[in-house]
């Protein structure tokens, strides 16, 4: 089962993860990522949340290679 991780130190608040998968990510009042659930039961959901690429490489999508 895919595990959701986020690097709070890397997060810059660009929020692409939230826009791509708002059932999994949110931002706190300081603009730092908050993980709403630690596991994604359906791997297809992860693919569907593929827009959660992160410019700061703080999320599971990472920057484009």
């Amino acid at each position: 089962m895919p595990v959701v991780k986020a690097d709070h130190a890397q997060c810059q608040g660009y929020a692409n993860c939230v826009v791509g998968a708002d059932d999994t990510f949110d931002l706190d009042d300081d603009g730092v990522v908050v993980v709403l659930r630690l596991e994604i039961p359906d791997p297809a959901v992860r693919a569907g949340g593929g827009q959660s690429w992160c410019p700061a490489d703080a999320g599971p999508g990472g920057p484009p290679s």
Partner: protein
Amino acid sequence: MLGRAARHLDVAGAFVELVDGERLAYDDVVVATGARPRLSPWGKPAGVHYLRTMEDAEGLRADLGRGGPLVTTGAGFIGAEVAATARQLGVEDITLIDPAPVPMGRVIDPATAGRLGAVHREHGVTTVFGTAVEAVESVGCSLMVRLAGGAVLDAATVVVGIGAVVNDEWLASSGLPVGGGLRCDERCRAVGAPRVHAVGDVARWRHAGYGALVRTEHWTNAVEQARYVAADIVGPGGQGPYQPVGYVWSDQYEAKIQVIGRTGVGLDPVTVERTGAARSFAVLYAGAAGALVGAVTVSWPKAAIAVRRALKVDTPLAEVYAAIGGLPAPAPSTL
């Protein structure tokens, strides 16, 4: 294939020709040749920099490590971010110059851009707006920047950030419609050549939502458009038109500036100040029917998220105003 440029695209023959003459046949071809910095009209003596590549950034950092004065010509995203970053690196003497009356005036309305210009001055950066640079000259080991009106600035380092030029010249022999980018339809397919696709800075595509040709030079679009085109190639017609909500950010000092959708000149801005947070606000822009069409948020990421969500569907500006501000919307006459 790195280090070998393409010099010709032959639509009828369905091949791309490289500079060494090799021909690569294709079923589909993606044009992603990007853009390059607009060259300095004042020459490029030692100490003058562009900022596009990693090598550019490393060269600039090395020069800034020797201290100022630093002059940035152009107060768009590049100039403004360089000024802010240099200040945070400890460079003392910085001047930000632009012929426009405010920084980032191409994408942000004048009043909001004026507030952002003030942030530079609060951090000790000298701003010279509404004034053109006439010359950058090498004098001994330093530089001299001559302004319209006769003022002269000494500089150790000059950054030229005056826009980008599209790398579409190599397509001139293809017969494809180029000039300011490769002209594409709503699915990012070149007009008249549906197996030729374009992504990123070089693509000028018809945005169905805006009803206009659009070219976007920012990170988010390059990623989203590449995803779209890849899906279009493997499953043609499986998606609707490519009509993203534009999104770009800029980090300057402590300010996180996020620009979403349509903003800037010709739209009436409505500002929401964030309660309890100085220098944190959102500027909302409405279209003719009163629907939100875009926003600029400053140090307020949650407002930016609310705007991005609202722009996925037609949402009245007043509704977004109330949601992010926690306040009743202003009277309709003020929207």
